[in-house]
């Protein structure tokens, strides 16, 4: 009732001011302008380019090929090979990051002395720039002088030094290792935030009722933090599928294309094969996958936002 009284003078004022949607338009316009110019316009142009056969080695001769570039890719073994490697990277790294991240978050949630040490340093791998992380692991994995080889031989695990990054059987695992080392802490930090939001009294009640540690986790904690887990899962899948930087610095997509993920393949097609038409089509195909994942992600965010 008192609200209605208070609201009245405000409304009379608003009549003299700009209508709300005009103000909103003015407030959103600068951001929208930046995004239209840098995202929407190029996106349209990329679609256009993807319909032509544009080879930088053959200027002036750019015939229209319709969906030819897309069909070429969808029927090419290279494309599916790179997609498979991207999916492999995504599946393994995401599973490890979520699994280890969950363990780390639970550990940091325990009432242990000195846990502040772990909680303080855990942000460091996340803060390390991706390129520096890749450089660091490239050096650690070095075949001749790397710390990994030194550690494993000195510990007696290995008898001789291994060329981790130039062996096509191990290169992808090394890239995954580097990614997992950097990203797991971030996952753990976000899961810890989720764990801390769980009502402790429910857990106490369950424990008093005789539930074991695993039961408490499985039947109370896990369902409560499932929304956070799902969001992280989609977010990591999205990031991992388009992985470029860490692979490029560590292996350049090699050896023998064994770490050539889809973004690396697109980059190489456009900038090393000088084929802009196919490069643009590849960019669109990748964007399509990402946008499907993004729709799932935003839907999940919207659902948790309401609770």
């Amino acid at each position, binding site marked *: 009732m008192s609200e209605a009284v208070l609201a009245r003078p405000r409304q009379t004022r608003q009549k003299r001011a700009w209508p709300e949607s005009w103000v909103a338009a003015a407030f959103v316009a600068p951001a929208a302008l*930046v995004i239209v110019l840098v995202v929407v316009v190029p996106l349209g142009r990329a679609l256009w380019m993807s319909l032509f056969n544009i080879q930088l080695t053959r200027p002036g001769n750019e015939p229209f090929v319709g969906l030819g570039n897309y069909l070429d890719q969808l029927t090419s073994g290279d494309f599916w090979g790179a997609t498979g490697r991207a999916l492999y990277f995504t599946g393994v790294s995401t599973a490890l990051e979520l699994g280890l991240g969950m363990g780390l978050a639970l550990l940091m949630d325990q009432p242990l002395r000195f846990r502040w040490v772990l909680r303080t340093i855990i942000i460091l791998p996340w803060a390390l720039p991706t390129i520096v992380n890749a450089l660091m692991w490239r050096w650690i994995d070095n075949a001749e002088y790397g710390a990994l080889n030194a550690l494993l031989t000195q510990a007696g695990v290995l008898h001789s030094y291994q060329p981790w990054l130039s062996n096509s059987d191990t290169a992808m695992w090394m890239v995954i290792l580097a990614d997992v080392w950097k990203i797991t802490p971030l996952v753990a930090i976000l899961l810890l935030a989720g764990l801390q939001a769980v009502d402790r009294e429910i857990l106490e009640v369950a424990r008093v009722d005789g539930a074991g540690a695993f039961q408490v986790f499985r039947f109370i904690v896990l369902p409560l933090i499932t929304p956070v887990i799902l969001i992280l899962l989609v977010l990591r899948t999205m990031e991992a599928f388009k992985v470029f930087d860490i692979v490029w610095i560590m292996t350049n997509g090699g050896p023998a294309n064994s770490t050539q993920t889809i973004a690396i393949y697109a980059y190489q097609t456009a900038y090393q094969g000088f084929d802009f038409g196919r490069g643009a089509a590849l960019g669109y195909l990748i964007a399509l996958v990402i946008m499907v994942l993004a729709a799932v992600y935003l839907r999940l965010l919207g659902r948790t936002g309401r609770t």
Partner: protein
Amino acid sequence: MATTTQSAPIRHRLFRRGILPSTLLYAGMLLAIIVVLAPFAWLLISSVAAPVDLLRRPLEWIPQHISLDRFAELTFGSSSDENAEGFRAALINSTVIASAVTLVSLTVGMPAAYAFARLRFPGRSWLILAFMATYMLPPIALILPLYQIMAFLNLRDTQLALIIIYASFVTPFVIWIMRGYIASISSDLDDAARVDGASRLGVLWRIIVPISLPGLLSTALLAFLMAWDEFLYALIMTETTASKTLPVAINDFIGRHGLDFGLLATGGVIAALPPVVIAFVFQRYIVAGLASGGVKG
């Protein structure tokens, strides 16, 4: 986060001591700490160790000769030194670009965030989703036309080109986080100020901005780190020291001095220093920003 204090007397234990002995938990914690810190330690050691110490087999973990020469070379070395000059230029470019992107994105993003949080207008809900979609779009889909457009505008190999491009994905991120932050502030203060005759812009500047300073700080830090970290656009758009950023400089370093591990490590340490220090000092803000931006919405 707030729950830790209120449940202090009955500390929550997920695992009862009997079931998972605490020694095992401490061992796990120690292992985690070692795994997190060891690669950093090795990067730091490599950056100060003499070349002979790095190329020893079997490797000795503590180098016999330590010097800061490479740090001096990369930061204050004579300008005739190609390494030093390129690296310093990249350091400056990265700083300028990341700062400018932060400033532009916050300036452009704050009014939009306010509009999305407080004002009712047609298309509000789908527009915010469209903004988020642009933020998530992979660079590889935009890079070819952007390259041509920047060439057409004579902006190739300029800091400005990267500032504009980075602002296009940092701005939606700013809008997303700040929209949530502003929505969590009670609108009573807005209303009071409006009754007193303040304009929307006045409310934003005098009420919202001061109240949301912590949120602004974490957003600004994350924006800075995003710009500092970016590699693919920079790889394509930059050609010379006029605009090359640190990630590109490091990529070049690997090409030119692939065997000078000490110099590479030093470059890595210098490039990592600003973000690592920021994350360490402002940890509370960064974690809050990450949690609200990525998870809670």
